[in-house]
């Protein structure tokens, strides 16, 4: 390194070196600098209620969100917000097949029936996943490294890896969490996710398809973390839509193990975990 003898060394060069030493990153040159204000994203966060997306149901509509899980947040005291405000996602944008799924879900929910959803069967949540503002008081933790940003989710003890400076593979496959790549645009962390499977839900009762493509823009706004997420899923929605989530700093979250409570209607499942084929399909 030519600059070794100088007092000011570019951060970028340093991070490239780190990437080589720690990850053998083949595209090391794309590792972006991480400034002090970018590093502020590191840490524990919890969602705060801010705004609802366009077309969301009226405030107070629907029963509390709790995923139907015994002891789940929102259930015991009924303080949890309605599903529509939980997600902030505009149900009217759903295509007919998605609307049919959602109506069926809402009807069953209103009837107090146990819902078989990925989330309450302890399966990994999709993006935006658990911990979105206005939802249950579950926490997330963001860990910034030069070549990877990691999201840890308290709920269902799930993690999401965002590969920095990388492209999606030609075939991202179909996975519960999708495949995420990211890069910095100034102080904003931009995350691009696709490759979801066909059985996960966007949020409880809100279907999504394999065509879902999410672009998140995360940045600090004052003391808060802003996550502006644009969802584009021509398989399930009639148009792309954007939801802005806000998070506030939080104490560390503890070890929440969904599988300890893994049951359906109070009856433990034989295998402990259903296979995806046991789940209601979100697409035809």
């Amino acid at each position, binding site marked *: *390194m*030519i600059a*070794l003898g100088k*007092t000011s*060394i570019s*951060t970028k*060069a*340093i*991070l*490239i*070196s*780190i990437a*080589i*030493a*720690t*990850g*053998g*990153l*083949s595209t*090391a*040159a794309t590792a972006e600098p*991480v400034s*002090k204000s970018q*590093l502020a994203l*590191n840490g524990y966060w919890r969602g705060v209620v801010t705004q609802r997306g366009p077309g969301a149901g009226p405030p107070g509509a629907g029963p509390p969100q709790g995923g139907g899980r015994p002891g789940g947040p929102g259930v015991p005291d009924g303080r949890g917000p309605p599903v529509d405000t939980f997600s902030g996602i505009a149900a009217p944008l759903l295509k007919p097949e998605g609307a049919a799924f959602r109506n069926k879900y809402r009807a069953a929910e209103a009837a107090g029936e146990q819902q078989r959803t990925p989330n309450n069967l*302890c*399966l*990994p949540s999709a993006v935006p996943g658990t911990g979105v503002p206005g939802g249950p008081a579950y926490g997330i*933790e963001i*860990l*910034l*490294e*030069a070549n*990877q940003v*990691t999201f*840890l989710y308290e709920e269902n*003890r*799930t*993690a*999401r*890896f965002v*590969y920095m400076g990388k492209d999606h593979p030609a075939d991202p496959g179909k*996975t*519960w*969490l999708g495949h995420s790549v990211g890069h910095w645009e100034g102080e904003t962390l931009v995350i691009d996710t696709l490759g979801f499977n066909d059985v996960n839900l966007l949020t409880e009762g809100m279907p999504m398809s394999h065509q879902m493509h999410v672009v998140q823009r995360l940045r600090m706004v004052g003391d808060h973390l802003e996550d502006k997420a644009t969802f584009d899923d021509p398989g399930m929605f009639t148009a792309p839509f954007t939801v802005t989530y806000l998070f506030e700093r939080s104490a*560390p979250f*503890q*070890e929440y*193990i969904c*599988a*300890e409570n*893994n049951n359906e209607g109070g009856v433990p499942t034989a*295998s*402990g*975990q*259903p*296979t*995806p084929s046991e789940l209601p399909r979100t697409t035809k």
Partner: protein
Amino acid sequence: MNPISSLSKPQVRGRSLTLCVAILLTTAGSAFAQTSPVKPGVADPAAFSGVWVTTSQSMALVPADGKPLPFTTSGKALYQGNVSGLKNGKITDDAVHLCLPEGMPRAMTSPYPMQIISTPDQFTFFHESNRAFRMVRLADKHADTDVWDPSYMGEGIAKWQGDTLVIDSTNFKSDRIYLDATGLPASDQLHLVERIRTLDGGARLEDRITIEDPAVFSRAWTAVRVFERRNDIQVKTDWVCGEKHRDLTALKTGASK
């Protein structure tokens, strides 16, 4: 020592690069790692970051000194009961059958990959198996057990001793875990001290796990687990019990995915 020249050789590893990074980090005060001026045996958090796979063929924890497991009388009875129960099916291995976390130290014996994530005040161990993870804070004091519940992974705090990260873990959900897949029992007195360091210029990682549990063992004993760095693979984050998992044979032969 010229990192620029090694840009064309992304797989290059070694002490020289590690040292170089440490110098750069120190010079720039990067928040990724607070390192002292470079000396052999000095802490280098970035060296831990990445994907690791066990080099051991066995999932059993055994004393590194070659001596028999130092059971107490009741500890031995508990273990024999677990071994026979797991064999004849009277005991269910919940970690396997109910998707419950394997817990510590068993998570460190998994044949599936793990990834260590290094951030300024924390080391995070993410295990592909059952997507278990533990956050280990760089801290002097354990969390208050009045507010921090027992957990499968325990509550780990870490400090540096030279180039070795020493993790002290307590407060386990001991009635729910075995120390390893053979059914080594744990009590609420379980206390782990891990000494983790890199070997061979960062190509390997050693975890010396000292297990102390007076209800089960007559003295503390130490097991050693060694991992090799695997830059060629990515740890999968969406492990689901009942779904098809990674082909471990491919992992051992060095094939990616």
